[in-house]
């Protein structure tokens, strides 16, 4: 497998300014590196890939990579992606969203994209916070954690993104973390090769807006927490539920076959008497 830096040089837009915008120690850069390595291991050319992102720190990924890139409105990446994929099914469409982007303002689009099982690859960078706007709580901020709009600790139960999308019909669901950078690119590769709607939740540290406010230590401390609490999914399934504290499963959680939306749409075209190209 190609090393990050070499692969990155191949896929970075040559004229973009570096260092990139993300804060020191932010996990988004690590996730982007994993994505590049995953793509490097497919047969796809840069022209065949459309990278669609929402708005947020994670949404900035689309600026840096040398594909057909689309930086949409907050929460709406999947809606634009749906239009692109349906208009040209030959394209490989990847969406990158933040946790707020995907599950708060864009939650409705997420659940419906899952339900349709349209062949779009989604990466949700979950840093448990609204990074870009200065650390407000998101639908994945754990209970009691502080945020700029949860001064006394959050009282809202967080979403488990993987469970959410599984229950809505996503046919490939996986979770990785910035600590497991190499595993992350392996699961992203599997997601890219999966036909149907896939979701990879990439847990990522936001040391500035989330970590500092909650005294979680250095970026490495936050990654160490991912390491210490992640359990590979088959092992996790054997832990009795009442013994689960902060642990969470990582790896591929769902991988099933179901007819993909555009395949089904072709049936409609045939029934209507149209010609499928």
């Amino acid at each position, binding site marked *: 497998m190609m090393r990050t830096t070499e692969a990155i040089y191949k896929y970075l837009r040559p004229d973009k300014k570096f260092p990139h915008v993300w804060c020191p120690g932010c996990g988004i850069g690590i996730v982007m590196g994993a994505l590049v390595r995953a793509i490097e291991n497919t047969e796809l050319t840069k022209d065949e890939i459309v990278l669609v992102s929402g708005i947020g720190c994670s949404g900035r990924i689309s600026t840096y990579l040398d594909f057909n890139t689309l930086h949409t409105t907050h929460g709406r990446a999947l809606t634009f992606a749906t239009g692109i994929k*349906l208009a040209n099914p030959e394209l490989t469409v990847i969406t990158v969203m933040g946790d707020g982007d995907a599950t708060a303002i864009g939650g409705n689009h997420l659940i419906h994209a899952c339900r349709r099982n349209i062949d779009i690859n989604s990466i949700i960078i979950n840093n448990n916070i609204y990074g870009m706007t200065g650390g407000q709580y998101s639908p994945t901020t754990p209970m009691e954690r502080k945020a700029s709009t949860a001064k006394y600790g959050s009282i809202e139960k967080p979403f488990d993104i993987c469970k959410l999308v599984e229950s809505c019909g996503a046919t490939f669901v996986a979770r990785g973390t910035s600590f497991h950078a190499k595993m992350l690119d392996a699961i992203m590769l599997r997601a890219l090769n999966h036909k149907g709607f896939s979701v990879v939740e990439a847990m990522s540290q936001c040391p500035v807006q989330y970590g500092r406010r909650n005294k979680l230590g250095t970026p490495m401390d936050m990654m160490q927490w991912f390491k210490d609490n992640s359990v590979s999914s088959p092992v996790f399934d054997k832990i009795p539920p009442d013994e689960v504290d902060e642990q969470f499963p990582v790896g591929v959680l769902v991988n099933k076959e179901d007819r993909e939306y555009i395949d089904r749409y072709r049936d409609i075209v045939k029934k209507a008497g149209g010609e499928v190209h």
Partner: protein
Amino acid sequence: MNKRNEVLLQGNEACAMGALAAGMRFFAGYPITPSTEIAEFLAAELPKLNGTFIQMEDEISSMGAIIGASLAGTKSMTATSGPGFSLMQENIGFASMAEVPCVVVNVMRGGPSTGMPTRPSQGDVMQSRWGTHGDHPAIVLCPKSVLECYTLTVRAFNLAEKYRTPVIVLMDGIVGHMWENIEIPHTHEVIDRAKPTVPPEWYHPYEKLPAGNITPLAPFGQGYRYHVTGMVHDRSGFPTLDHGEVELCLKSITNKIKNNLHDIINIEEYLLKDADICVVAYGSVARSARSAVNIARKEGIKAGMLRPITLWPFPRFHLEGIANRVKTFVVPEMNLGQVYGEVLKSGPKKAVRVTRIDGELITPDQIVSKIQEVSS
């Protein structure tokens, strides 16, 4: 169907047929009265042409999807009414900013809010101009008949492609639901997406070309890799905060419309040459206005009508041109005076309005009374 190729059509259907004739092959929408027939018609017809119909989860996603489809190179459209049109506004702004051609049909109903779903209104005139935030251009076409639902939808696609911008077809519930026998035009101009003439290395999707030419939008996936964003961007499409670039970006999206008013603006003039009284009316109300003018003429009153077919950009120069010789402008509309305000800006000697927001049509009689009142 008879020999003259005449068909009995509903306004909404004619709009959908016009879209297909213009080459639209992607529709995303969410049902809402009184626009739903457009979606229903296209759900049946698009698959026959191997086009895509999708019912999205809401109007926000419908608007996002049509922008995505357009970027992938397919002419696309959505159709909605008041509340749905409100939901679309953020992404309409995206299409303006990112210069992505697409067509949005808004069949107006009584508002605000859920208002009167089944009653006609013209309450969205200003929203169609200023619905999204920030300074942005708008092209809004306003049909008065079933035939125009067809022809103006074709024209909406042509303008969208030509100027790389979203175009709004602003219908009212009467026009959308009205049935008329129309002769479908055999031939009409169809402007297709221009292809870049330069190789990918030289391509800048937002290059400002001389003489008002507009840089072709390369479809995604054909070797022209570039970035599209709703942020203010430079000529290559990347976000910028450089003063000069910002100004260039924002002014150019407006100027491409402003510098082509002669091409974009269409009006209908009726008996205006010697008119002392000019009725300014649009959409279904223009039908009543025309009758009213006829009645007034029979009574010896020199009345005429000016109908903005292109509602935005507003045909201000046309009004200014006659403002000196017309004694009074009469502006009937199914709102509290949204176009009336524009008429005032043209510097008329006198202007009065006839407004109606109770969900009923404005009748010719109502307009005639106003004409009589101001002419006496």
